[in-house]
């Protein structure tokens, strides 16, 4: 059985590891993954990295890859949600996340870089929609990735952070409390299969698996839908 090489956006790492194990058990195809930022993985692919499947953190890059002829088409494999998480359980006393943020005791809040990270873009949108963006300018700290935003929050470096729902289900994430942020649009993550994949059969099989029932269960477990 030929192994399958998958490039995975780092925010999906937890869910992916479990899915890969499940997939291996079911099909016998060995999955080898590279986790990195979407931008990094895209550069690698452009320069000839032999990945069979690419799980991006956005929809933009699979689209470009399609235009460039690397893939025949992309599909959405996960939708992430933004939450506002804090290591301090008292933080969640307020009735809504907006009020919790406006508490005078809150000195710093983290969000992922709105320019480069999809979760950051989404968080910023929620803040703008609720009219909080300008008022909180001086309190915001920019993390480069959504994982780093959670690191800030979990180490109490910031009082609260906009993180992915998936973070809240990790053991570390259960130590704190969070608000859902319905104003933040879903973060849509698309995947694509390489046209010239070395293991085309396995790659297509994995693409199907990604959308199957067992996979959905795992995704939900890690806060995706």
């Amino acid at each position, binding site marked *: 059985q030929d192994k399958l090489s998958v490039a995975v956006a780092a925010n999906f790492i937890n869910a992916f590891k479990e899915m890969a194990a499940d997939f291996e058990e079911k099909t016998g195809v060995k999955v080898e993954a590279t986790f990195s930022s*979407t931008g990094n993985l895209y550069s690698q692919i452009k320069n000839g990295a032999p990945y069979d499947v690419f799980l991006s953190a956005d929809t933009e890059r699979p689209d470009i890859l399609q235009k460039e002829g690397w893939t025949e088409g992309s599909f959405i494999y996960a939708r992430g949600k933004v939450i506002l998480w804090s290591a301090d359980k008292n933080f969640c006393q307020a009735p809504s996340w907006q009020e919790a943020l406006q508490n005078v005791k809150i000195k710093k809040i983290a969000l992922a870089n709105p320019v480069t990270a999809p979760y950051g873009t989404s968080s910023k949108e929620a803040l703008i929609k609720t009219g909080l963006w300008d008022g909180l300018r001086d309190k915001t700290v920019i993390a480069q990735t959504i994982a*780093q935003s959670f690191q*800030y929050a979990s180490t109490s470096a910031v009082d609260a952070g906009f993180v992915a729902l998936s973070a809240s289900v990790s053991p570390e994430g259960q130590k704190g409390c969070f608000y859902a942020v319905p104003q933040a649009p879903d973060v849509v993550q698309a995947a694509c299969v390489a046209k010239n994949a070395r293991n085309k059969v396995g790659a297509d099989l994995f693409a199907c698996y990604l959308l199957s029932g067992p996979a959905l269960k795992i995704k939900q477990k890690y806060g995706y839908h």
Partner: protein
Amino acid sequence: MDYLALYVTLKLAVVTTVVLMVIAAPVAYFMTYARFPGKSFLEALLYLPMALPPTVIGFYLIMLMGPKGWIGRVWETLTGGSLLFTFLGIVVASVVYSIPFAVQPMKAAFVKIDRRLLEAACVLGLSKTSTFFRVILPNSLAGIAASAVLVFLHSIGAFGVLLMVGGSIPGETKVASIAIYEAVEMMDYRTAGVIALCFIPISYVFLLAINKLNSGGRA
């Protein structure tokens, strides 16, 4: 182009270099001449910041410098403010991150000082400290220059650590390497290339200055 980020980068690199030269010289002196059990172990610890991926160092620094870490707490009692996400914070991070690069070449230079010069200093009544300043330092300029070059450039390139500890606040902690990172992530390779190219003249000027200082000391 992000001139502010370039300015922060330069300021950080200069401050780090100056601070580290002052800190590293006595440390290297001590590590060269002191004999005590567990010395290699201490040395290994000293070099650890280098062997660890920057993100890990960054993570531990956040823990230490955050409101729950002891450095953070001490700092808060002293100044009332937070160390994280400030320029001072990234200076601390960058100093920790570059310690090995400062210490190691200095140590190599100190080791090579002719023993006879030290004996002469000894006979002429110089204390350990005076010997350090009057004999060892001026005869180790090449090694100190090597340290300065490594530290300066390394703090320009420092990235993972600063990314963590700084929080990328424009004009305060957003350094050029973060700007490059953003450009690469946005697939704007031209901007990334342009900012990267800015470092050639900067490194060039710095090397020239160091070489001048270094040969000035010898001529």
